[in-house]
C-alpha cells in the first residue's frame, strides 16, 4: 500500500545516491518537482533514465546529480538543444556523463520486458544503424521462422518517479491523456514514487485513456500541485511554452544556469515556493526570459 507523504520525505528516503532512477513523462505529466527535489537533496551518481529527457533532466545533469543517462531522445521539445546535457557530453561539465542510448521503440520494449518479468524484449529495429554498435542490443533468431530480430535488455529502475493527476486516500493513482511509458516504468521498478495534482475521495475514472496504478504497486504518493511545470497535467494545467523557450537562453551559459538554479530551485524550499518564485518577475533578473 502506498504511503501518502511529502515529496521531500519520499525523495529523501527512497532515492539513494548511486541508484538508477527513471523520471518518466512523455511531454505530458513530467515529474519536474521530483527532479527539483533530487537537486535540493544533492543526490549524486544517479543513473537517470527517461525516453525523452528534457528541461528537468538538463537541470539535474547541470547540477551534477547524474553519472549516467539512459535515453532515446534528449532535447528541449519544440525549441532545440539541451545545453547542459550537451555541455556534459561535449565538454564533461560539470563532470563527464556516460550515455546509454536507444531508440524509442527499443526503450519501450525494454520497459515492457521489465514490467513483464522478462530479461529481454524483442523488436524489429536497429538493423543497419550505427546505434547498434554503440549500445547494448543482440541479434535473436525466431525459432520457428529463422528470422533474425533484435533483442534489448529489460530495464528495471531502482526507482521510478512519475507525476499524475489524482490519487485517492488509499493511494490508488489515476492519470489520463497522453500516458507515455509511465505504467510500464512503474511496473518495472522496485520502488515507485508518484506526485499528484490532487488527493481526491474517488478517482475520476471516466476520462479517455484513463490509467490506474493501484496503491499496492506504488511506494509513496506526494501531493504536488503544478508538479509537472513547465509541462502540463491535462485537466489541471497548461503547458508553459514560454518557459521552454526561456530555458534555451537560461541554460546556454554555465554561470547563468547556476545562478538561476540557485535562485529558483536550491533557493526555494519546495515546489510551491518554486512556482511562486518563477511567477514573481522581480526574481527573474538572472533569467532574461523566464
Amino acid at each position, binding site marked *: 500500500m502506498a504511503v501518502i507523504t511529502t515529496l521531500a520525505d519520499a525523495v529523501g528516503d527512497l532515492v539513494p545516491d548511486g541508484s538508477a532512477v527513471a523520471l518518466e513523462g*512523455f*511531454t*505530458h505529466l513530467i515529474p519536474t518537482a521530483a527532479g527539483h527535489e533530487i537537486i535540493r537533496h544533492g543526490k549524486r551518481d544517479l543513473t537517470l533514465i527517461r*525516453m*525523452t529527457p528534457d528541461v528537468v533532466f538538463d537541470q539535474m545533469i547541470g547540477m551534477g546529480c547524474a553519472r549516467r543517462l539512459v*535515453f*532515446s*531522445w*534528449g*532535447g528541449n*521539445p*519544440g525549441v532545440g*538543444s539541451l545545453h547542459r*546535457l*550537451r555541455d556534459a*557530453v*561535449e565538454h564533461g561539465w560539470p563532470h563527464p556523463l556516460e550515455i546509454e*542510448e*536507444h*531508440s*524509442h*521503440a527499443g526503450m*519501450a*520494449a525494454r*520497459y*515492457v520486458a521489465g514490467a513483464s518479468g522478462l530479461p529481454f524484449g524483442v*523488436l*524489429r*529495429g*536497429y*538493423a*543497419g*544503424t*550505427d*546505434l547498434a554498435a*554503440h549500445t547494448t542490443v543482440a541479434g535473436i533468431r525466431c525459432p520457428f521462422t529463422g528470422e533474425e530480430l533484435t533483442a534489448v535488455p529489460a530495464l528495471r529502475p531502482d526507482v521510478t518517479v512519475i507525476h499524475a493527476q489524482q490519487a485517492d486516500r488509499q493511494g490508488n493513482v489515476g492519470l489520463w*491523456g*497522453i*500516458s*507515455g*511509458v509511465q*505504467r*510500464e516504468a512503474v511496473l518495472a521498478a522496485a520502488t515507485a514514487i508518484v506526485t499528484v495534482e490532487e488527493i481526491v475521495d474517488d478517482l475520476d475514472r471516466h476520462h*479517455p*485513456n484513463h*490509467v490506474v496504478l493501484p496503491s499496492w504497486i506504488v511506494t509513496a504518493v506526494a501531493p504536488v500541485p503544478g508538479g509537472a511545470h513547465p509541462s*502540463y497535467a*491535462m485537466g489541471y494545467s*497548461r*503547458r*508553459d*511554452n*514560454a518557459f*521552454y*523557450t526561456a530555458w534555451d537562453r537560461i541554460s546556454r551559459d554555465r554561470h547563468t544556469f547556476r545562478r538561476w538554479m540557485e535562485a529558483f530551485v536550491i533557493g526555494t524550499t519546495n515546489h510551491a515556493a518554486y512556482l511562486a518564485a518563477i511567477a514573481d518577475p522581480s526574481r527573474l533578473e538572472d533569467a532574461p526570459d523566464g
Partner: protein
Amino acid sequence: MADPPSGDPGYTADEMMTVTAARHLYDGQVCFVGIGLPSEAANLARLSHAPDVVLIYESGTIGTRPTVLPLSIGDGELAEHADMVVGVPEVFAYWLQGGRIDVGFLSAAQIDRYGNLNTTVIGDYDHPTTRLPGAGGAPEIASAAGEVIVMLRHSPRAFVPAVDFVTSVGFGRHGEGRGGSPGSGPTVVITDLGTLAPDPVSHRLTLTATHPGVPVERVVAETGWDLEVADDLTTTEPPNPGELATLRQLKARTRQAHGTEG
C-alpha cells in the same frame, strides 16, 4: 530559413516546401508524423486535399486532428482531438511495427546520398562536436513505414556525402539496400529548393524537381555530394491560393494559441 525565390512570387521557400510535402500525402493514408516540418505538412494535407488522412504521433495519439500545430509531440491538443490515445509501447509495437503505417514523415540534421538520416551526433560519437537529440522514433519509422517522406532544408551541412552517424537507414551506407526492412524506405526528399527521389537501381538521391525560380546550379551547390539530376527534371507547381490560405490560417491560429505566452 532559406530565402524566398527571386522575384517575390508571393510565398516563401518554406511554404513551397510544406505545400510540396503535403501533396505527397493522399486521402485515407495512415501517416506517422514527426514534430516540426513534417507535422506542418501533414496537417496541411489533412486540412486541404486529404481530410481523411490518419495522423499518428509517437506520443500515442492516433487519428488526431489538431486545430493548431503542436509545439511538442505530446501537446494536449493532440490528445484532445484524437480518435484514441494509447501508451507509447503500444504505438510502436501494435501500430508502427505491426505494419499499419503507410507513410512515415521524418526530418533530420543530416542526410546522405543514400537517404540515410542522422539525428544523433555531428563528429565522433564518443567525442562529438555537436550532440543532437538522438534517435527517438525515427529508426523504426524509417524501417517499418510503407514509405518514408523526408523533409529538410537544403545546405551542404545537411546534405552530406556520408552522415556522421546512421540513426535511421535509408538505403544503407553504400546504397546496398534495405537489408530486409519491411518498408520500402525513402521515396522522396523534399527541401526548400526542390524534390529528390532515389534512383530505383542505384538508390542514389536524384534531383527530380526544382521549385519555381530555383536554378539547378543552386541545388547542386547546396548539396554536399555530386548531385545527379533527372533527365525529366520538372518544376514544382507553385502553391495555389487555397493551399497558401489554409497553411497561413493554420500558422496564424497556432501563433495565436501559443504566442500569447511565448
